[in-house]
Each structure stands twice: as C-alpha cells, then as structure tokens.
C-alpha cells in the first residue's frame, strides 16, 4: 500500500516536471502565435480592439469564416514592406559577417590562451552583456553624432575638414549591431574552438601543413558548427531588431522590426502588423530550425 502511494508520488513528480513548463510555454508562447496568425486575416476597424472578429458566430457555418487575405495582398502591393524585409536581410547579413570577421579571431585567441587566462578573457566578453543593452546602444549616439566624440577626434587630428554624418546612417546601424551581438558570436565559437583537440593541429603540422594551411584545412572546417551557431544567434535577432535602427539608423533606413512597431503603435493597424510578423516569422523559420538542429545535435551528442 505504502509502496503504491510512493509510485504515484514519483509519477506525479515526473508529470509536474514536464507539464508545468510545458503548459506555461503552450499558453504564453504558442497560443499567442496562433492568435497573431488569426488576426493577420482580419480587417482593421476603428474600434477597441481595432480589428474585425474572425469568427462571426451569428452567421451560419459556411459564412462564419470572415477572414481575408487583404493584409497579405497589401503587403505584396506596397513597396515599403518589400524594401523593409530586404533591407533587414541585408543589414542583418552584413552585420553577421562583420561579427564573424571580428569574433572569430577573438574567440580563437581566447581558446589559444593559457587556461588560467581564458576565464578572465571570457568574462570580459560577457561583462558588457550584463549592463543595459539600451544604454550601450545609446553610448554610440554620443560617439557618432555630428558633434560627437569621434568627429571631434577626427577633426582634431586633421583627418577631416568638417564633421561626418555618421549617426542616423546604415554605418551606425552596423556598428550598433556588431557591438551588441559580438558576444553572441564569440561564445559559441569559443565553445567550439576550446573543445578542439589541439593535437590535431600538431598532427597536421607534423604531416606537412604550414600554419596557414593548418588553419584552412583543419581549424576552419572543424569549427563550422560554431560558425553556424554564432551566425544564427546574430542574424536572427538582428533581422527583427528594433532599438538599434530606431536610435542609430536614419529615418529612411527601414528595417522590418521598426516597420512592425510603427504599424502597430503609430498607424494602429493591428491586422497588418500581424501579417508583417507572420511573414517575418516565415522568413526566419528556416534559420531558426537550423539553429534548433545545431542545439539538439549538441544535446544528443553528449548525453
């Protein structure tokens, strides 16, 4: 009898461990997406909430579905949205590449440092992450503005005649993204490079590989999983970035995160914002699944 009760207790504990986080995520993560998807088929009206109901229960079954593809058709017609999506992909792509170019040598350097120094260097990489993201982006406003620190320094050195317009340009957006997302590139790369068996470098050198060849033949291919993970961790959030283009980008530098934000808060066209979000999600679903796969495979490979 006692044993029986124990077993029920064990089973309950197991259920609890799985079901509590599971149902929370279902309710507050998955269901909201379904709602976004649903509303993207509604039409906007001036009301509270500002969209038509998708199911009109007064109608009979056939006419009950009131949705329309109007929002999506509008997105296709209006160049503004196309440009926003394409610009976002471009800005996120270039930023990711810049992050990789700067992050790889840094990660490699840390991985090659003596073990005692590695933790300190790693902490220095993570440390800025703990301070406010918003304030770190804001710091660049002071550096890049027309009468900012960088312009003053360049003028003082006589490199330029008059201040450069750096703030409110794409250049500033690239700097902002690279600056905030660099740790996300470095950390997975470091994790990969650190695990790398240093003997395989020795082996390649021993077999006749010169240092650069060894890097090209061995280090780079072996670190591909780290490169993919790091690049996705930069590219995906950069795609939907709102704060950086809003603070550092020009009025004309439309990125989709900002377009969505404006559509929602300024134009109050919630169904259209939902459609914008749905398309953004569709664009990102492939990279996200790729990221999931790298996560899952790293989970399964070291049980």
């Amino acid at each position, binding site marked *: 009898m006692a044993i029986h009760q124990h077993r029920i207790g064990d089973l309950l504990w197991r259920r609890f461990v799985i079901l509590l986080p599971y149902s929370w995520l279902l309710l507050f993560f998955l269901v909201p997406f379904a709602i976004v998807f649903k509303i993207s088929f509604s039409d906007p009206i001036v009301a509270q909430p500002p969209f038509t109901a998708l199911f009109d229960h007064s109608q009979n079954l056939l006419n009950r579905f009131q949705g329309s593809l109007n929002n999506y058709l509008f997105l296709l017609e209006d160049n503004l949205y196309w440009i926003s999506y394409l610009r976002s992909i471009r800005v996120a792509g270039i930023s990711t590449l810049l992050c990789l170019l700067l992050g790889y040598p840094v990660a490699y350097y840390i991985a090659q440092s003596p073990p005692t120094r590695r933790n300190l260097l790693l902490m220095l990489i993570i440390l800025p992450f703990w301070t406010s993201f918003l304030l770190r982006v804001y710091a660049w406003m002071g550096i890049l503005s027309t009468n900012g620190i960088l312009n003053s320094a360049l003028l003082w050195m006589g490199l330029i005649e008059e201040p450069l317009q750096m703030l409110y340009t794409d250049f500033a957006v690239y700097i902002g993204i690279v600056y905030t997302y660099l740790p996300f590139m470095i950390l997975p790369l470091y994790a990969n490079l650190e695990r790398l*068996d240093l*003997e*395989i470098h*020795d*082996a*390649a*050198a*021993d*077999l*006749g*590989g*010169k240092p650069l*060849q060894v890097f090209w*033949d*061995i280090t780079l*291919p*072996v670190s*591909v999983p780290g490169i993919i993970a790091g690049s996705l961790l930069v590219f995906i959030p950069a795609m939907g970035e709102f704060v950086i283009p809003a603070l550092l980008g020009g009025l004309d530098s439309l990125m989709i995160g900002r377009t969505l934000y404006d559509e929602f808060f300024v134009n109050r066209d919630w169904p259209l914002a939902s459609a914008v979000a749905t398309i953004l999600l569709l664009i990102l679903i492939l990279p996200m699944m790729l990221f999931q796969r790298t996560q899952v495979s790293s989970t399964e490979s070291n049980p």
Partner: protein
Amino acid sequence: MTTTADETTAAPEPSAESYLQIRSLCKDFDGITAVDQVNLDINKGELFAILGASGCGKSTLLRMLAGLETPTSGRIVLDSEDITDWPAYERPINMMFQSYALFPHMTVEKNIAYGLKKEKIEPDEIDQRVKNMLDLVQLKGFDKRKPNRLSGGEKQRVALARALIKNPKLLLLDEPLAALDKKLREQTQFELMNLQEELGVTFIVVTHDQEEAMTLATRIAVMNSGKFIQTGTPTEIYEYPSNRFVADFFGTINIFDARVINVTGRELTVEVDQSDIQMKAYSDKPVAIDDNVGIAVRPEKISISKQLQDGANITATKGVVEDLAYYGNYSIYRVKTESGQLVQVSAQNQTRSSDHVVEWEDEVYLSWEQNSSIVLVD
C-alpha cells in the same frame, strides 16, 4: 653493453654512422627543466623505446624530435642533416599521437592522404598509395568512413597509416597502445613489430608501460626527471639494472639494504641491515668495506621450499609465508624474513600434486644463485 647514468651525462663521442644523433638536448618551461642534457644515438631500422613515468619528459623529448617544441639548447641530427631548427612541417619525421588526433571532419581516406597532398603529389599517385596503405594496415573498405564511426583499434591503425604514408625517416609513436584494451594491445603489439620489420622504418616509441617497452623494442632508454638513467637492450636493463630506480621501475624486485663486510676480488659479502643474515654477491663496480649497498633479487630467481637447499653458490634465508596468490601457472608468495622484510617470490606450479605445497604461516627457506643477486651501489 650497458650504459650507466654516469656515461650518458658525459656526451658520448659523436659517432658519424648513427642515423639519429641527439646531443645535449635540453628543454626548459619557465625555469622548469623538462628534458635535461639528453644524448642518444639510434641506428637505422631500430625500434627504440623511451620508458618513463608520466611527467618524466619523454613526451617533450618526442615533441622536440617532431619539431612541435623548440629545444632550449642542444642539436638533433638525422641522416647527417642538422634538423634542430627545421619546422615540424618540413621534417622527414612523422608522429602517431596518443589521442590519434584524427581529423574529425575528414574520411579515413582523406586523413591518410593529407600528408601526401601537402607534398603536392599527383592525385593518381596519392590514390594508389592510400589504397596500398589501407591494405597494409588491414583497413580495406573503411576509406569513406569518418573517424567517429571507427573503433579504438581501427582509429589506431588509421593514425599509423597516416603517419607511415609519407615514408618518414623516423616514426614517433606516443603511447601507441595505451588507449587499447588488453587483448587488442597484445595483438597490435605484434602487428606493429611486423610492420616495422617489413618497412624498415626507424621507430621511436614512448611508453610508460615497461612490459610494452620490453616486448616491442630492440633497445630501451629509461627516463626519469628529464634524464636518461639507463640505455640498453631489454635483457640488459632487466637483468643488470644500473641503479635502484631502474631496478624498481622495471618489473618487480626485492631489495635488501645491507652493509659490505668483506671484499674478495669481484665477490663481496654483506650483512643485511637489522639482522645477522649474510649474503654473497658479485659486483663489477668498486665497493669498499662498510659501504651501504642494496642487494636486489627478482622474484622468479628465488626458490621457495620447506627444506634448506644447500650449495656453494647459494644464498639462503629463512622466513614465514604471509600471503600467497595462486595464478594457475604460477603462484606468488610474500615471505617475511627474520629481518622483518617482506620478500616476493614467484614460483612455477610444475606439479599438480598437493604434496609439499607451501601454505600460509609455513616456515620456509628462500634460496637463490649467488650470481642472481644484483649489487646496487647508489
């Protein structure tokens, strides 16, 4: 001929004919000496083993030969060329790493071909040589596999093939069998020896396992804290260890601490400390009366019996069996002598009869030939 510690520290005459000559090689890491004044001559086609506990400097020595570590001082000459300052990728020396260091992203075939590709050899020739090598190490049909789908023994053979394919003048093997289980280790040992004989490549094996060194190598150097303690054939090192460290490190040995009481030519008589047991032994080294020496005897050289064995050249002592372990073909006894020392004896079980069997607590006599005793003076 046994080389003693004294002789190795003084640089031997550079012999022009030696294939590999290591002269006064040293390596310091931040003030810590890992390799200390090592001199070594190795002939072409030898299978040489460097034996030592972990941290004795043997791996550093090997890495210096491979060019992966820069010596602090000293020279390395291979086949009449001073290669001390050559980078690893230019040396005609290849290495089999302890972890095997197979490139995880390349197939077996690509792993083996890597060294040849770096030599810019024609693809057709590479294919042919890789194929031959796969045959040689019995890995036919494994060419398209990735390292993570190989067993330990297969990985070991890929690593060997990859190092051998460049026809190195010298092949370095860092603990080549350490990662294999016991059965596989024995089999691979013979495969390695056959391969070496077949190809005629000079091998240097680094190992911490004295049995492995003894069965594999034609000559062995015993290393301790960066120095070569003794260099010689396996028999020389086993039967004539030059000092206590080698005697103790190489197999099991009983050592009686004693004081010399009489010297007659090569023959000396000693008295074991804390007892009145006297022993006779031969020494080639100069010994004087009142010197403290160690008398070392291998367990298998001692015979154990309940009756006193007598003879002119026999050393004997009395004791009580404290412990015995039966291994089937032989048994090991631990006998406490009158001086209180535990002596290990191993005896073949030649008969099945249970007569005269030595048991726990039995009073027994231990005896051995006088010339089985090794005199250790340090």
